[in-house]
């Protein structure tokens, strides 16, 4: 029975992952922003038989609350085996280009808040010499593109942060998993026209748990994004800069 902390618990991928964790008997602690949404997710999971140790609704962009949040989670769960960090926003790239305060907000949400949380969580797990940290990043962090480089750069920074953290945690046995989903059919992408590349959140959730079980470092979900991103990364910059991607 794992003790599992889910941050960004009202995101579609997190909800599906929480259902699977609940199914295998995990004790869950959920963190989300909107108290109403968090409450409806908690009730749904409880009807499905989940053991919810506690919830906190908080704005993760207020970093000063992170320590208190972790303390409460540790108290409720009596330890920590798995952390899934799943919160994020997909801002309006065009608006961010015109107004840096919007871009700053995106980078705070998608990178800095994670860095702050991970600093606290990793120190805790390092002390215990055990645990798994799984963080939802994005394929968008693999290469900067004009269509979403603000989100992409935050996720890219997150990828490097996780890479370094994984390296640092290795001796203590704490595992760090970087999850790079491609297009997922969630509220975040509601405005997008769906095509064959779009995956369902429950499919991504199964991939996440499998990657955790297999002790992977980095996982592309669904797997074929590894190939797509390998090609995108291999395009020489002098050509790539001319593309409209």
């Amino acid at each position: 029975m794992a003790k599992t902390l889910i941050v960004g618990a009202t995101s579609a991928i997190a909800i599906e992952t929480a259902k699977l964790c609940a199914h295998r008997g995990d004790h869950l602690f959920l963190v989300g922003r909107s108290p109403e949404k968090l409450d409806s997710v908690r009730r749904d999971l409880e009807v499905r038989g989940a053991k919810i140790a506690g919830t906190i609704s908080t704005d993760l962009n207020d970093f000063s609350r992170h320590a208190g949040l972790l303390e409460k989670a540790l108290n409720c769960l009596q330890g920590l085996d798995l952390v899934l960090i799943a919160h994020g926003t997909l801002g309006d790239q065009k608006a961010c280009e015109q107004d840096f305060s919007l871009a700053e907000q995106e980078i705070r949400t998608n990178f800095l808040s994670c860095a702050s949380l991970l600093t606290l969580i990793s120190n805790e797990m390092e002390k215990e010499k055990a645990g798994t940290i799984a963080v939802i990043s994005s394929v968008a962090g693999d290469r900067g593109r004009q269509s979403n480089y603000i989100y992409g750069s935050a996720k890219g920074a997150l990828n490097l942060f996780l890479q370094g953290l994984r390296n640092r945690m290795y001796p203590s046995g704490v595992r760090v998993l970087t999850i790079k989903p491609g297009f997922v059919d969630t509220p975040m992408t509601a405005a997008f026209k769906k095509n064959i590349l779009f995956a369902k959140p429950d499919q991504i959730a199964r991939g996440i748990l499998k990657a955790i079980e297999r002790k992977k470092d980095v996982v592309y979900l669904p797997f074929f994004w590894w190939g797509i991103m390998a090609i995108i990364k291999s395009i020489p910059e002098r050509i790539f800069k001319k593309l409209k991607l």
Partner: protein
Amino acid sequence: MQKQTPHVESWGRTIKVSQTIIPLFWQPEKFPRTQENESFLPYGEGRSYGDSCLNEGGILLQTRGMNRFIFLDESKGLLRCEAGVRLDEILELTVPKGWFIPVSPGTQFVTLGGAIANDVHGKNHHVAGTFGRYVRAMEVLRSDGNRWICSPQENSELFGATIGGLGLTGLILWAEIQMKPISGPWIDQETVRFSHVDDFFKISEDSEKDYEHSVSWIDTLAQGKHLGRGHFMRGNHSSQKDDRSSKPKTFSIPCNAPNWLLNPFTVRAFNVLYYHRQLTQEKRNTVHYRPFFYPLDAVLQWNKLYGKRGFFQYQLVVPYKNDREPIKEILRLVAKSGMASFLAVLKTFGNIPSPGWLSFPREGVTLALDFPNQGSKTRRLFEELDKIVRTSQGALYPAKDATMLAQDFQSFYPRWKEFEKWIDPKFSSSFWRRVAEGQGTNG
């Protein structure tokens, strides 16, 4: 967040209209948006066949994202969940706990909201009535921002209008339903072959008392002394407890089949083979609830078998107790037309009333037919059938309908005027404009 998608269709795929989609992921605190002259319609899984789930030029509130359970009382079998939860999701949760949905339509891939809005019926109508009878309470959000909790006791008028109300009375946010206790996922099933529709009525009468579920498949091409021959399937929830069932195996029709695939020849061959697949008069076995209640769910997107042209479903009910001539005349007409129905389903409805004002099921015999869309040829057959339904005081089912005449709807559903007062002023559908306001050209 919204998008313009011409791809949202109803199950029959004969109607191509453009509408704006607003996906809902959470129970909205206030009504999504209200500008002048906008019209809204909730849209679940789009399993209605005609235009009752479409709103040409308007907005569809896609409810599938509101799919959370709220509460389950495992001792009483009371389940409360959001309107976008699908029946298969409910069953997956409750069957292992010993509860089944009180009424099962022919597919489990419909939302709870859709099941209520169409007041669906199932194989147990003769003993259980419609789905709406098991709704204990629900909450409806109106476009003026007001939320109404309604039940048979509280706001009972809105309750009666919303059950079978085709989504027009507001957005159902959640509903609480009374489930039915079962021992396990199994059904003790019996299949009885019958060679004439008169035999159907006899078996039906004999089965009414001892079998909770009954339905018949019939061969619509058979004529003369074989008129309305078919298989009568009846069953009860089995007392077997163990769940040996594995995950359901499904496969999906990936793209449109060519239009010629389902033609009179192939359908006739299928019907003959299907009729004779059972060589004995009677067969008994125990089957899982999925193949018993939802045989077609194994083939995802089976509607694409009809090809790009799409297909019509025509479901009628006519009285039979004093006079079986109307249903026989209908069967004769269909057989004579040579427009083979791939799947034809015959069942008797009981006289249990529904709380829904526009509920379709009423005492009589109901027949559901599928026809490939062959344009005016198909419509001419429907006109012939309409005449019999009209003169025999029968009715047609809005959830399946794409062609019903306005005056027919108004006489089949005499409470429609009373219902109209409860329609949300900002809600409408292509179907409603066609049958109540006389707009549109029948798809």
